């Protein structure tokens, strides 16, 4: 982003927020939040020790708007969440700013007494510049566009007891830089059917089938897969809820050493409400998943995650989240690009942790302090190993 665009972008966003505030006496059906924060980032390019470049640290100013709109008329509900953010780096060579966008849409339509339709769309646009040092490209430009469109129709075959739901999803990932796009652009199309049975007022079970086709720009990681399984959800009491999903997946990858692979999958989560306003969520899962490198068609990944939220006082709230995943890359899943002389199979682990304290100064103003840690260690792409710390302090207010 050019230097002249920085004040323009900042002023434009602030003016949108200000004018909307001035118009608020007309009771626009829009909620507006503004979040301004200063952040210290010790690794803005996510570089690791194995590359010929030092970590670049920088302070950042992040200005983020959130515009929330929803409306409900008769049998139709429509909601929009749009959040642009502008990031200015005090010390990032060559490109000192990013402009990112997040857009979420949802439409719920009650077609009849027994049938409903839902459509959701998720769009992300982010800038992630490359890093060149001493005429060596350490990291390529990763600016990307991502969109996921979901739709489902659910109908009660037996009222309040048995339902059938048909789902569809179309997701695309597009990178701006040609080299990166050639390797990593993909289209994913998924169709699914669920047969849902209410076993008791707080208990449901369902049989599920999923079919997914995954096409990359270059076909090394293309695959088709079928999942067959079941899901179970139960609210034991107002303070405890559990969800479980499991089954078997069959995957075909034409460019892998072993073209056909199969594996069980499982996902489980528990939600506890141990005290008033306190929420604890823990979960774990295992499944075959997309591969981040084109030397392997897939990975088998296990993950655990958790989150905790609790008010420390009437105005002070603490949020903690964390996740750990380990992916296994087997030589049988290698693609035709895999070269035993230079590539290796193995594991890849990702660790993420974040914490946030929110203090409500007035009914419209919050002060937020946060810390985030991210770490990647990989046998299959060791040059991508990194760790990153980010600390921020910000002011959030609603208009």
């Amino acid at each position, binding site marked *: 982003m050019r230097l*002249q665009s920085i004040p*323009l972008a900042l002023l*434009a966003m*602030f*003016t949108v*927020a*200000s004018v909307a505030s*001035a118009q*608020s*006496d007309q*009771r626009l059906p829009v*909620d*507006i*939040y503004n979040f301004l924060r200063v952040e210290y980032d010790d690794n803005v390019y996510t570089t690791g020790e194995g590359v010929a470049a030092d970590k670049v640290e920088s302070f950042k100013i992040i200005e*983020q708007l959130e515009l929330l709109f929803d409306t409900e008329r008769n049998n139709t*509900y429509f*909601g*929009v*969440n749009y*959040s642009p953010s502008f990031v200015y780096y005090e010390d990032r060579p060559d490109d000192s700013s990013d402009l*990112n966008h*997040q857009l*979420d849409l*949802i439409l*719920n339509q009650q077609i009849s007494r027994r049938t409903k339709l839902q459509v*959701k769309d998720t769009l*992300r646009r982010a800038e992630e510049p490359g890093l060149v040092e001493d005429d060596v490209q350490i990291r390529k430009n990763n600016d*990307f566009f991502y969109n*996921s469109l979901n739709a489902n129709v659910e109908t009660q075959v037996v009222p309040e007891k048995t339902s059938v739901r048909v789902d569809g*999803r179309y997701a695309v990932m597009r990178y701006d830089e040609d080299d990166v796009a050639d390797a990593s652009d993909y289209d994913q199309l998924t169709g*699914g059917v669920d047969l849902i049975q209410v076993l008791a007022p*707080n208990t449901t079970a369902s049989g599920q089938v*999923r079919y997914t086709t995954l096409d990359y720009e270059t076909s090394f990681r293309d695959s088709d*897969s079928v*999942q067959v399984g079941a899901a179970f959800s139960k*609210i034991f009491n*107002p303070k405890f*809820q559990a969800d479980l*999903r499991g089954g078997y997946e069959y995957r075909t990858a034409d460019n892998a050493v072993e073209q056909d692979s199969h594996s069980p999958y*499982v996902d489980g989560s528990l939600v506890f409400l141990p005290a*008033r*306003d306190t929420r604890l969520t823990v979960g774990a*899962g295992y*499944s075959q*998943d*997309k591969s981040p490198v084109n030397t392997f068609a897939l990975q088998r990944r296990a993950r655990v995650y958790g989150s905790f939220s609790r008010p420390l006082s*009437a105005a002070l*709230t603490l949020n903690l*989240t964390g996740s750990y995943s380990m992916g296994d890359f087997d030589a049988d899943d290698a693609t035709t690009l895999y070269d035993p002389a230079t590539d290796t199979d193995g594991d890849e682990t*990702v660790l993420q942790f*974040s914490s946030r304290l929110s203090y*409500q100064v*007035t*009914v*419209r103003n919050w002060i937020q302090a946060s810390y985030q840690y*991210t770490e990647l260690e990989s046998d299959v792409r060791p040059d991508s190993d990194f760790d*990153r710390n980010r600390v921020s302090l910000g002011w*959030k*207010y*609603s208009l």
Partner: protein
Amino acid sequence: MKDLYKIFTTLLLPAALVFSTPQAFAQDGESEPTEETESQSITQGEAALILARRLGFFVGTTRPMDQQNAVKVLMENNIRPFDGWKVNDPLTVGDLARLLVQSMNRENEIPEEDQSNPDTTAYRDLLEREYGLNLEKIVASLRRTGSSKDPKGTGPLDDTASSDPLEGRSGEGDVDELGGGSPVNLNTPLSEEDIQAVLTSTAPAQGGGSSGQVDDDADDTTPSSPTP
């Protein structure tokens, strides 16, 4: 292009300064935002009118149905927020809990030391204990919590949150990764929709209202409104 940029910034800068939000710093109390600058929050005066109507205080009277008379009739029945009625102030969750308990003639069950404490949860606890009415959950279910901003890493580390290929994370991006949105607590201002949703969940006993007993089968574990 340069001229256009200068004109644009020349117009934008004073507009931003003029319309910038000093009212965002308004403190609770005397300098609270006026109705002219109030956004989505319902004021105490507006809430008084809704509550007085629902309680039937205007039935059979010749009083004009307006905020002033609504406040008067509620005060006559010892129904008031912690700091008294301030018609232009936003109504909070804590105040609504108190108003509902008072309208049900059950304030005598609240400890005396809590009856004047705005930070108390006693009113809210009574509503949940006796009527299964959790105000925060009702209000939170009406709010967008920003749950779409799932925690995510830097760069294309992981775009799946589940084994289900119909679910996926929102992609990558170096923006607020913590999600969660703003918490709903005692000081959260309420909108008209919040008030209506709460009043629909209970029928306080007074005036021309019903028995005031919330349905014993009320399910407070499942949000009643779709959320994005």
